[in-house]
């Protein structure tokens, strides 16, 4: 701060401590997202390379990226939802419905595959938009709205398939979820593309900025003339669309429309977003953090499998990691408030 900028002697004296405080806030954020998380990820990878057989192989790395894509693509939409101060716990069920519906449309009803995909994406977007509409119009907490969808969408998926997977015998279609370009799995490329798109949305568009504003202070956002209602519907519609898309990817990978997949996916998705530093209180979060969070949680799961950790113990450990991440997130927010 320069002397000529300050209009008053009173101002100069109190300028310095504030500048110091803000620098500390900055450092804290810098440390966590651009240093803390990558370091944690690297440490974890080094540890697993040494201890877990086959961890540091090309094949396994691409396995990780493939799994990461199913979580990550949805997690970017979820990041918008959580930044806006909401939550969507219906994504796992939405993936299952997308996959199941694809099987029913393409096989049972004999629709051309591309048309079936279009229908599935439209369906998933519509359910997302519905959740957003109910949230925005009736001010029902999004947790409750999506809890209802969590149950209803899974039920629908089971209902239309009678609970059985429907085989989709189409080798070309399998490329989407299981194909490779060179040695790189196609879903991994989709993951990177989704990251870039959502990074752009969150940083460079008025829509993205509106999402942050709504999460930071909905009343101030509204009094600034921002389209709060429309934005709330849109973020849920986007997340729905992404879930539907992952449903299609999963159907492709498994070569079947399957109503029982993606149970508990919402946990991984939300955990990745929270580990990535997005505040559950709304208003804060980055796509980069989410990207790292997705990698971290996928590497963790992969590593535990390779190490032969008891599958039940894996769940306990995953839970502990999320709890730790939430605590860190909470402490950071509190520190910022205090400064």
């Amino acid at each position, binding site marked *: 701060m320069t002397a000529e900028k300050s209009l008053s002697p009173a101002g100069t004296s109190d300028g310095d401590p504030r500048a110091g405080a803000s620098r500390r*806030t900055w450092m804290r954020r810098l440390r966590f997202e651009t240093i803390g998380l990558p370091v944690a990820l690297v440490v974890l990878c080094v540890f697993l390379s040494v201890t877990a057989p086959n961890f540091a192989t090309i094949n396994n790395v691409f396995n990780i990226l493939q799994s990461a894509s199913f979580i990550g693509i949805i997690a970017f939409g979820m990041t918008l939802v959580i930044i806006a101060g909401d939550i969507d716990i219906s994504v796992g069920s939405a993936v299952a419905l997308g996959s199941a519906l694809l099987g029913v449309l393409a096989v049972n009803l004999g629709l051309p595959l591309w048309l079936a995909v279009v229908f599935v994406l439209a369906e998933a977007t519509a359910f997302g938009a519905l959740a957003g509409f109910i949230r925005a119009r009736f001010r029902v907490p999004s947790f409750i709205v999506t809890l209802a969808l969590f149950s209803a969408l899974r039920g629908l998926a089971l209902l239309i398939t009678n609970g059985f997977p429907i085989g989709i015998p189409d080798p070309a279609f399998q490329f989407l979820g299981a194909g490779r370009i060179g040695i790189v799995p196609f879903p991994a490329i989709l993951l990177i593309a989704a990251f870039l798109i959502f990074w752009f949305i969150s940083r460079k568009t008025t829509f993205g900025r509106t999402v942050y504003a709504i999460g*930071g202070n909905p009343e101030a956002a509204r009094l600034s003339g921002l389209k709060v209602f429309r934005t709330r519907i849109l973020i849920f519609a986007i997340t729905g669309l992404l879930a539907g898309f992952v449903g299609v990817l999963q159907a492709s990978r498994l070569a079947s429309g399957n109503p029982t997949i993606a149970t508990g996916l919402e946990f991984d998705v939300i955990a990745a977003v929270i580990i990535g530093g997005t505040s559950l209180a709304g208003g804060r979060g980055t796509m980069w953090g989410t990207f790292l969070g997705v990698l971290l949680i996928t590497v963790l799961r992969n590593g535990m499998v390779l190490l032969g950790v008891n599958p039940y113990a894996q769940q306990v450990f995953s839970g502990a990691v999320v709890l730790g991440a939430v605590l860190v997130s909470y402490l950071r927010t509190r520190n910022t408030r205090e400064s």
Partner: protein
Amino acid sequence: MLKATSISKSFGVVRALRGVDLAVDAGEIRALLGSNGAGKSTLMKIIAGAENPDAGTLELGGQPVTFTSTAQAVDAGIAAVYQELSLVPGLTVAENIMLGRWSKVRRTGGTVIDSARTRTDAAAALELLGEDLPLGALVGELSVGQQQLVEIAKALSQDPRLLILDEPTSALSKGEADRLIALTRGLGSRGIAILYVSHRMDEIARVADSITVMRDGRVVTTMAVGSADVSTVASLMIGEERERAASGPFNEPDDQKRLEVEGLTRQGAFEDVDLTVRRGEILGIAGLLGSGRTELLRAIFGRDPVERGSVTVDGVRMGRPVERTMIKNKVGLTPEDRKTQGVILGMPIATNLTLAAFSRIARGGLIEHRKDRSLSALTSEQLGVKAASLDDEVITLSGGNQQKVVIGKWLAAGSEILLLDEPTRGIDVHAKQQVYDIIRSLAAQGHAIVFVSSELEELFEVCHTIAVMNHGRIVHRGPAADTDLSQTLALAMKEQSADDR
């Protein structure tokens, strides 16, 4: 009963109380008046044990007392009811009245609340009040007036010798206020001493026995209620030295009408409001808490509904005002509560500044980085926002600088008609002067400004025209130069009678 002697209290460099003496007898109802910052709240807090005095003594019933907590004050027999109600909406009337003091019974498996006993205790408190409220009803389902009664019953259940009522009628309808006044008289006749803070003179005349006027941390005078009329009290509150305002605005307004409000009405909030603001004019709206100022501004801006009347901006009549249309027509509102409505505390200063200016910094939904940066930099420079970096979050700024950000948001958006609701609330004296200068120079540039404030002095220092709002109506409107400060205050404080308008 209560005797306070030479009470002094400072907050940093601000001397809130400078040797206050106050004595209230048992059964006496004492009205306490004073402008913002006169020291009423601090005095009440000290009596109620929420603050410690720097110097001075308190005596209760002849015994010296010192309180280090409100609980101690309650034990000593002092209960207070503040403007902000402290009730739990999801509990019943009875549970709220006895909040935290529920009778308990031991049953197998643990101790539970004895609801029958709690109800009897609560009923006894309501009995004292002479009011009949459904004990089992949830407090959240009651009207504000009834909630106020629950709060008073809660205070009475603590068996106080002294009851403090802080602007108890500001949120009440006329009928509810009348009931409350009758009830307060009843409490007085039972021997409870009452400190009654209010500025509604008509109400004070009916409820109080005596009046104490405070100014600048001192007691100016105490007199019997019969010997006080509105204008005397108003001039005592203001003080002679401040009777005439200092500088005034920089410019004279044009004739071009920028904002016209006609017959704007929402029952219970504001009625038949007519206002005109011309190019370059600063219109000040004076009025007491609860007079409908904030409601009026929010309705003009389209945030809250109106029932009748019209808003016209630059000759274009707005059907039903909506925020976004108003903003497009260059109207901006800086809300009363800066932190919860004006700024987004966790967002950078720069982003806050351009939040309402998407049409200027973005095309097709894409933000143009350079335009964004230059607009926020220009605006913050124009207003002298003092920050290490515009990337710092607004929460790191002082109150005055936060207020500049709220005003800056509208300047960045190109707004020329500004509705400023208490823009100087809670900011320091120096920052206030800066805000005044900003307002004056905006008017000189041709902006039209509505300036709502509880501090009359600042309205006279800044505005061309003063309007006085009382119970949702504009009761007076005239050039600031021809208007007398204490007369304005008297108008704001006077109860409206039916033929009065």
